[in-house]
């Protein structure tokens, strides 16, 4: 039952992922990407990680992709779609094939079994998935967490400074 469901979701994820790069219309690509995120969220749920799934939908599908769609709509990139980037397509497909080959080779010929941590399904069900993430984030991984937030703050300030016009009369409009 679970395997069938996983196969369906994974197939949908791969299909929508392919649609992202093959669609001619950028809006359709963006929507396919939303669908891919949704499938990933479903996979998180199957891995006993509902908090990750909710955040995936909330942040990636709900906020970031809306902004991307927003930009695509305002830029009106329809004229761009007519061009074909054959060189880029050729190079990227060669690189992609190489990467796929390398990863398949290592899967077959090495002893990559993964490292088993102390957290299994029983622990997650007992303590709670959200609590585990919160504890890990604010104790063991506090420094990376803080560094990431400072990085984001710098990015926000940079964006504000870049978009602020030198002429105060025009900046009034975006206020």
């Amino acid at each position, binding site marked *: 039952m679970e395997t069938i469901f996983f196969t369906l979701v994974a197939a949908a994820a791969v299909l929508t992922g392919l649609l992202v790069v093959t669609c001619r219309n950028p809006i359709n690509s963006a929507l396919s990407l939303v669908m891919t995120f949704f499938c990933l969220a479903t996979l998180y749920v199957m891995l006993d990680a509902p*908090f990750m799934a*909710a955040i995936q*939908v909330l942040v990636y*599908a*709900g906020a970031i992709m809306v902004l991307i*769609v*927003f930009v695509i709509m305002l830029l009106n990139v329809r004229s761009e779609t007519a061009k074909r980037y054959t060189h880029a397509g050729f190079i990227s497909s060669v690189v992609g094939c190489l990467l796929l080959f390398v990863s398949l080779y290592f899967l077959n010929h090495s002893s990559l079994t993964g490292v088993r941590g102390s957290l299994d399904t029983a622990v997650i069900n007992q303590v*709670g998935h959200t609590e585990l993430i919160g504890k890990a984030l604010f104790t063991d991984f506090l420094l990376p967490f803080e560094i990431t937030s400072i990085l984001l703050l710098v990015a926000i300030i940079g964006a504000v400074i870049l978009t602020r016009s030198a002429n105060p009369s025009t900046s009034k409009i975006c206020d």
Partner: protein
Amino acid sequence: MGYELFGLPMIYYISMVLKVLVVFVFVLLTVAYATYAERKLIGHMQVRFGPMRTGWHGLLQPIADGLKLFFKEEIIPAQADKFAFLLAPIIALVPAFIGFAVIPFGDTIEVMGYKIPLQIAAFYDTSAGKVVDLNVGVLYILGLASLGVYGIVLAGWASNSKYSLLGGLRSSAQMISYELAAGLAIVSVFMLSESLSLQKIVADQSGMFWNWYAFKQPLAFVLFSICSLAEINRTPFDLPEAETELVSGFCTEYSSMKYAMFFMAEYANMITVCAVTTTLFLGGWHGPAILPGWVWFVAKVYFLIFLCMWVRATYPRYRYDQLMRLGWKVFLPLTLLNIVITGIVASFF
């Protein structure tokens, strides 16, 4: 009822299907009669009668409206992106309805020895002796709300019309801004309940009414109510469809059933938001034991819907820059302040 399927008793499946059907039909009926109630209410507040002709005091008006919209001609603009145009109303409608899956609307009832919680996405765990529900229920609702934006954005873009596009863009900007403030406002509720599960949040508010989070978190309650009004595009924040400047915003080019779907999505969103506010702040289905829990739940939700309509009859629409300033410069800092205060108070007392 001794049969089992995938290790669960048959009554589990039967109760699940029944819960879904009952809630769905109930919400659909509420949507239909909310349109009638709104017209009637605003009519009386403006010293008019509202609909009077169809049935006694216009009681059959929603059915007449539905039939009319159903038989209208379907118009798709020639320059529209057909696929996205057809998809948009569906994307708007579905998240509005499936949000109800996680809302607990009553106490656990017992049917033929099986305990059934009145919440769709939940079951009674006999070995643990408690109700198990989705442990990130609130985030699920927030996630659905953020997916509902796509319906409106796509509708605006696919119609290939200036007014629609402007309405769609406005709406997406507004919903993203206020989603943030609404999400942060309920963080303080999580800090008190120490859980994201709606079952636990409701259980925490049992007892007398001063246990409700509306009284423990008054600032969060007010902020969440206002932000959710903005998120469901209700007056005074109904800028995406501001008929005086944008004709009708994102649904200008829509007709027939597709227009009706947007309309239904708007009212279903209103009901969902009122149900969430009831669950998070007004004690959910708790109330004096003279009436069953679900009656209290429905009464509280209907009262909040009434408040939404009252606000619509009372306040004029905000200007767009005022709306953005309010969201980012007033509500967001206030919610953050509330989180800090809650954190300090909760850690010292």
